[in-house]
């Protein structure tokens, strides 16, 4: 069973529907026991880092999520769910986050010609062939995925995919064993996004 963690950080319908499209059994939950006993954990989220951390605390899920992320069980962070795996976010004047991945989350600088939030399909360059992450099959490299964000995670030792926006090259995807996390939305990135979810389901 795959647990999709519901911590009041945005809409989970798309994530649920994407797994349903792949025929995977996935349940939305905020029950600590259900998360602890899940085979796979999806940690989505949109919105602000500070309120996300507050919600996790209020629901008694902070340690549950941190433990799940380092447990070795397949874990997938998406968007804000990736960002708060890092150590710290500049959002809302600065907030300590889960610290599972080393590095910081910062706001895009004001650069003429670059709107914030970044909304739309941007290219992801998959690197570090040392990781076993294979780029999605495509005749067009690098492939595009759908992003919606105002903050970005710095590049860290676990970064396996990078993207560029507003003059910044940032982490589009990290991979640390069975912990995968992406800034973009695989559930909204068409066929390539589904391919990525399918691969995660078999890791």
């Amino acid at each position, binding site marked *: 069973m795959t647990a999709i963690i519901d911590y009041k950080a945005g809409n989970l319908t798309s994530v649920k529907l994407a797994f349903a499209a792949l025929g995977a059994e996935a349940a939305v939950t905020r029950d600590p026991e259900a998360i602890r006993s899940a085979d796979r954990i999806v940690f989505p989220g*949109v*919105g602000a880092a500070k309120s996300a951390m507050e919600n996790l605390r209020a629901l008694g899920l902070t340690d549950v999520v941190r433990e799940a992320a380092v447990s070795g069980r397949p874990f997938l962070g998406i968007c804000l769910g990736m960002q708060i795996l890092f150590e710290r976010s500049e959002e809302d004047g600065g907030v300590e986050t889960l610290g599972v991945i080393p590095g910081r989350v910062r706001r895009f600088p004001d650069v003429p010609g670059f709107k914030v939030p970044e909304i739309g399909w941007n290219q992801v360059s998959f690197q570090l062939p040392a990781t076993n992450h294979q780029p999605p099959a495509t005749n067009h490299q690098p492939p595009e995925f759908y992003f919606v964000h105002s903050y970005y995670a710095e590049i860290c030792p676990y970064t396996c995919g990078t993207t560029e926006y507003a003059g910044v090259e940032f982490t589009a995807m990290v991979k640390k064993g069975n912990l995968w996390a992406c800034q973009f939305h695989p559930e909204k990135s068409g066929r390539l996004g589904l391919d990525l979810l399918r691969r995660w389901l078999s890791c």
Partner: protein
Amino acid sequence: MLTKRVIPCLDVRKGRVTKGVKFKNNIDLGDPVEMAVAYSDGGADELVFYDITASAERRPIDIGMVESVAKAIRIPFAVGGGISSVADMERVILAGAEKISVNSLAVRNPQVIAEGAKAFGAQCVVLGMDPVKSDNPKCPSGYEITTRGFREFTGMDAVEWAKRAADLGAGEIVVNSVDADGTRAGFELTITRLIAEAVGVPVVASGGAGKPEHLVTVFREAGADAAIVAGMIHTGDCTIERIKREMSAAGVPTRMSW
């Protein structure tokens, strides 16, 4: 590089996609879910649905349609029409749409933008606006906001309204030129550029797309981040793939693999 988005717009009336000129003379084009799948498979970067009769009929948006679309496609889509409260927004989002587009409602009650952004995040709240060329002295930009499908003039300056909406928390602004809507003679570049330069959030050009080169022009010359297409693809005169090939050939970044 972030690519420029091509967004088919589907106007839905009584459960069917329709297309009219200047909001009139509607003709039936097909089933919304079937069309959504076809456009998604055909390379659309995003979709937008307007339940165009919901407001006039004073009924909520067709949630069943939103749910069916969300099940059928794996690309983002926005929904507008018949949204009259934050509770309506929530129903649309829980049904699986990424974004809600508010237009007349935001003019009547601008705070709904702030409330929606606070509840769901700015990225979920799209301000749709229908500006028209105007010599109203209250509108120094030369463009006035209309509502209710061009039926009402508001006396609001289009550029000032865009700035205010972005300040209130709109994550994106769709500039639908009433003058260009349905003409297929090209986007209204001036108002698109004025707004793209005035706000820090992405701007979606709408109204007037008739040929691929119209999209190339609005991206290159008006600073649009995305462009809406309707009649030119609904009639089969053109395809999204052809639009994108021309964009790519002209050096406009576009997603070519789907």
